[in-house]
């Protein structure tokens, strides 16, 4: 049993511990609502050679499904099972706990990630594999964004799409599951002659990237959002495309 006397100051006094979970709920909640709006009320993300990341790839191989929903579930589940987002989601949405040392309101029925639905988080690597497939299509889209009817060119949309796919690549390659797959699961990092193994070098590189996984998670989410907003404004004629050359 824990000590009988309840802590008077259960949480960190004087600190704004509630800011982070509420900001998480706000950011992820708004992104979720925007995604739902896209799925049910928008049917295209294409403006000439620019394609919204929410609608890529456009090929559906005969499967009848809403255009955005065709792809959206992959990055959605990849992010929902991401080790970084799990921390933010459990803190922000489930208050499990809201912050370190803050007493939880729900004390019963905690099973962590041992039962449905959260046991699904163990499948993170599978969503990572699928997210890589989507990433390949996004790279193709980013390259196509530089090919205009009159040949190679650079527009504001081309740059936005390129930055977006670079950020998504950084987010994907800094993933904890990838860190484990490239070398984290190994117990030997040295060859017989004492030199480092290739797996060790890969693991070190991914470990360095992994330290910024949370940063990549947020900025890549906002870049996806921003890319779609930019292309959608072009589709609706709110703004005109900017072409540098």
């Amino acid at each position, binding site marked *: 049993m824990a000590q009988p006397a309840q802590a008077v*100051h259960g949480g960190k006094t*004087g600190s704004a511990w509630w800011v982070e979970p509420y900001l998480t709920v706000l950011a992820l909640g708004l992104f979720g609502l925007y995604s739902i709006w896209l799925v049910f009320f928008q049917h295209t993300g294409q403006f000439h050679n620019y394609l919204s990341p929410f609608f890529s790839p456009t090929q559906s191989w005969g499967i009848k499904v809403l255009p955005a929903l065709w792809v959206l579930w992959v990055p959605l589940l990849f992010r929902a099972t991401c080790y970084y987002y799990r*921390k933010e989601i459990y803190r922000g949405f489930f208050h*499990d706990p809201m912050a370190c040392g803050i007493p939880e309101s729900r004390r019963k029925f905690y099973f962590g990630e041992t039962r449905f639905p959260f046991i699904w988080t163990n499948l993170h690597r599978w969503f990572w594999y699928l997210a890589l497939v989507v990433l390949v299509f996004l790279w193709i889209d980013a390259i196509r964004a530089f090919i205009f009817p009159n040949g190679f060119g650079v527009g504001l949309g081309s740059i936005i799409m390129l930055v977006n796919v670079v950020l998504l690549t950084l987010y994907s390659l800094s993933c904890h599951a990838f860190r*484990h797959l490239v070398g984290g699961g190994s117990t030997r990092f040295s060859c017989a002659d004492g030199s480092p193994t290739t797996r060790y070098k890969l693991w070190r590189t991914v470990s360095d990237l992994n330290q910024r996984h949370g940063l990549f998670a947020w900025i890549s989410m906002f870049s996806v959002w921003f890319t779609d907003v930019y292309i959608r404004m072009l589709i609706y004629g709110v703004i005109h495309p900017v072409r540098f050359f």
Partner: protein
Amino acid sequence: MAEEITLSVFRGDRSGGREQEYKIPAMTGMVVLDALHYIQAHQAPDLAVRWNCKAAHCGSCSAEINGSAKLLCKTRVDDYENEVIHVRPMHTFPVIKDLVTDVSWNYEKLRQIPAFQPAINAPFTLQQRDVDRLQEFRRCIECFLCQNICHVLRDHDAKDAYWGPRMMIRISELQMHPLDTADRLDLLKGAAGIGYCNITKCCTVVCPQGINITENGIIPMKESVADKYFDPLGGLVRKMHK
């Protein structure tokens, strides 16, 4: 710095207790443990506090200072300028007296972890890069602040289901050893209950040794469990690779 410090210290035992205020003179460089020693020497000789090295190495003086899990010997009183310093015992473990808690449950769990089983007998030579990961975990001073702040143990009192972050990094340390032959993954998924950890990283935040418990210990172990139980394809590839 103020000339006088006010401390509100928990006084009581397993049956209950309350905080009691003490006013003491401020001294340069004073840590909370110094303040408690002053109280013991001048105002309350029966105040119970566990301590040993006073250098953040023995892990004895874990407590909660203004709601945060900290070492008494590593927390300066001038961090709490113009504040009453509330000092309470670790919330997760039963109080013996005042600031002393019964942490024996942790040692019971440590004993249940299968020991190092080397493939060859010592002495053996290893490359530094092969043991870097283990040496991070060996910095643990067993202060149990991570166990105290873990919400699974603290709020849900699920000690029967989850052994806590300290045990997770002990198992990680053994599992990652290049020469160890024991398999503790069944234990991790079963009795040790790694699935109960939801990676909210409070254990890492409070660790006075700066051990990256979640990123370098718990998540790699969760992935190792996923290797064995949630990734039949990966398992098949590894089998073929062998």
